[in-house]
């Protein structure tokens, strides 16, 4: 319990603190420190869960089970590494005059608040609180995306706000319907929105209402997950915001949104005894993978490229959860983890690369490896990892997903494989000249923070070759939970 309070309290306090001190020169340091504290708290929470099993605390409002505990740990970890990365990155941005101290204050404060909302969404047992946290996450990130106040960033933020706002409104309607259905079983009052309670009685919930609710929830949280055709805000928001924000958006927020979808799916599955929810998720997943793969080949902007890659991977994970079953769910969870780590590592490298070359257009970036081998290799290896090249972890999950699909949904495999091949061709052909070849990059005064990049890549590599037993155990339990 104290751990949960700490996990949520540190970022919230940090946000307040940074709202006050965020413009100081040592603010990035504070940011890192707060993130570290959050990480430690999350580690303690994880240890507690390992030792004692699922937790249900604070009047049943907070809940930790194998499904969300690893996401909490992952969120805290990536939040911490991103704060490390953002230290030199933001300094350089400030020196180049793109940011003022006031904006930095906003940035730091919102960064912590954003972390808080994500952790809240993950830990909340109440579906209503989950919704509130998701909406709050949208609001904080809107501010972060529009940080530069350039026309493009404003446009991106506006689209993000409107599309996700509308989307999340649908999710609220879905939540209301859920409550509507649950109330009949559980009675009015707080209990009817608690996931644990709902999960216990999911068999008695009215199927018609729940399937209707699921449509709204899927469209709502699916917008935030970036499922095609609800994805249109995503590339803009990723490309125009500051790179640390892109990293957390891609690496964490999408996961959290998908987490919400999956939580809802569990309830609906338990109530509706058709494959309706599965089919919807598979359909959305597949469509996202295919469309994103084609989009990848048309990108001229590096960050947009990886934004589409996120859509693709969210599609893969959604597809996996849609298929269901112990292997596919396991793979989906593994993919979530590996994708977060890899994608944020890529964005770290991309961030430094854009600073060195002064552009984020693909045609303008050349030969990174000459000016900074560590960064070039980081970007290259990260991209290969995200494309599902072994021995990185994404391959492990894609392997499992593909072989399950082959057995259970053979019709989908050709689409998946074709999309993967197209994505591979698109990304490698664009990345290769960026990393190799004659250079146009310059050296900058601040050393790039490469430690986060390689930490993430090392973790992803480990996941490809060896999954720690307790992690595997969680995945298995969570997979069983998801059904």
């Amino acid at each position, binding site marked *: 319990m104290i751990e949960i309070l700490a996990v949520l309290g540190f970022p919230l306090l940090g946000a307040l603190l940074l709202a006050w001190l965020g413009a100081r020169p040592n603010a990035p340091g504070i940011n890192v420190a707060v993130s570290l504290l959050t990480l430690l708290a999350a580690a303690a929470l994880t240890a507690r869960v390992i030792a004692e099993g699922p937790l249900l605390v604070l009047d049943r409002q907070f809940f930790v089970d194998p499904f969300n505990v690893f996401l909490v740990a992952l969120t805290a970890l990536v939040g911490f590494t991103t704060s490390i990365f953002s230290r030199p990155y933001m300094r350089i941005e400030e020196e180049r005059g793109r940011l003022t101290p006031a904006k930095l204050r906003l940035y730091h404060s919102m960064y912590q608040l954003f972390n808080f909302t994500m952790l809240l969404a993950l830990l909340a047992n*109440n579906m*209503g*609180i989950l*919704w*509130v946290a998701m*909406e*709050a996450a949208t*609001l904080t990130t*809107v*501010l972060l995306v*529009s940080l530069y*106040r*350039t*026309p*493009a960033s*404003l*446009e*991106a*933020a*506006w*689209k993000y*706000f*409107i599309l996700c*706002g*509308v989307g999340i*409104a*649908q999710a*609220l*309607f879905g*939540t*209301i*319907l859920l*409550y*509507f259905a649950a*109330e*009949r079983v559980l009675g*009015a*009052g*707080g209990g*009817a*929105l608690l996931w644990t309670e709902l999960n216990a009685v999911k068999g008695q919930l*009215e199927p*018609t*209402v729940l399937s*209707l609710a699921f449509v709204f929830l899927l469209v709502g949280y699916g917008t935030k997950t970036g499922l095609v055709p609800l994805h249109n805000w995503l*590339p*803009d928001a990723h*490309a*125009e915001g500051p790179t640390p924000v892109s990293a957390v958006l891609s690496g964490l927020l999408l996961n959290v949104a998908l987490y919400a979808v999956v939580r809802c799916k569990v309830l609906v599955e338990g109530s509706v005894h058709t494959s309706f929810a599965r089919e919807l998720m598979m359909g959305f997943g597949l469509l996202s993978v295919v469309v994103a793969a084609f*989009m990848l080949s*048309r990108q001229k902007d590096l960050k947009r490229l990886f934004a589409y890659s996120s859509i693709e991977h969210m599609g893969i994970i959604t597809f996996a959860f849609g298929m269901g079953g112990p292997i596919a769910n396991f793979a989906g969870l593994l993919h979530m983890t590996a994708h977060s780590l890899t994608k944020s590592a890529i964005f770290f490298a991309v961030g430094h690369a854009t600073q060195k070359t002064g552009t984020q257009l693909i045609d303008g970036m050349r030969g990174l490896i000459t000016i900074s081998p560590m960064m070039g290799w980081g970007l290259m290896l990260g991209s290969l990892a995200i494309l599902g090249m072994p021995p990185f972890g994404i391959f492990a999950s894609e392997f499992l997903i593909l072989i399950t699909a082959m057995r259970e949904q053979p019709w989908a495999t050709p689409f998946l494989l074709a999309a993967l091949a197209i994505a591979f061709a698109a990304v490698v052909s664009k990345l290769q000249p960026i990393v190799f070849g004659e250079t146009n990059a310059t050296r900058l005064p601040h050393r790039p923070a490469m430690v986060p990049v390689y930490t993430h890549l090392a973790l992803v590599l480990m996941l490809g070759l060896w999954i720690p037993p307790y992690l595997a155990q969680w995945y298995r339990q969570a997979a069983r939970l998801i059904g």
Partner: protein
Amino acid sequence: MTAIPFYAQIINLLAALLLLLSFAMLAQRRVLSLVNLFAMQGLSLALSTAIVAYGTAQPHLYWSAGLTFVLKVFLLPWLLHRLIRQLDVRWDVEGLINIPTTMLIGIVLVVFSFNLAVPISELASTVTRSTLGIAMACVMLSFLMMITRRKAIPQVIGFLSMENGLFFAATSATYGMPLVVELGIALDVLVGMLILGVFFFQIREQFDSLDLKHLEKLKEGE
């Protein structure tokens, strides 16, 4: 048909009013009138919430009603009025599709929503169950409004009106969500509005206009 309690009849009336207002907003060209219509929608929402609170004796819904009243009848319309004045954007609203067509689509949407809601309403235990269809129709109509407006402020009003529809569903169909959730939702709406206000200024500063056609640069297709 058994007798419906009086308060429920009032709620049904208010629901019809809500739907009517939604249509009116869909058809309204002037921004200031739009804001007024939005305020009226908020008022009927607050009223219905209060009546539900009274009828079902759920005191926490009074809180909710009060919150709605303050937020949606006073604060937000006031904010919007201020914005419109400061930004000097009192022009007439031109939709992307002409009004009659929009109305026609709107009617189809209402039929669709009602159809969707009927089987659910049958199941509900609340007396106000039939309002669910109206709430859904309101949400849909607001959605349509967001699609058809090409200026930023009407779009936002559409968004807020969608929230109204949702609130209406939450209160009348289910007798209200848990308080902590409602508070959270209200907070989010408020903060969102504030952020939007800041946004309008920034957009204005960058583009000299709040026309959304300036916000079409980020795209893939040529």
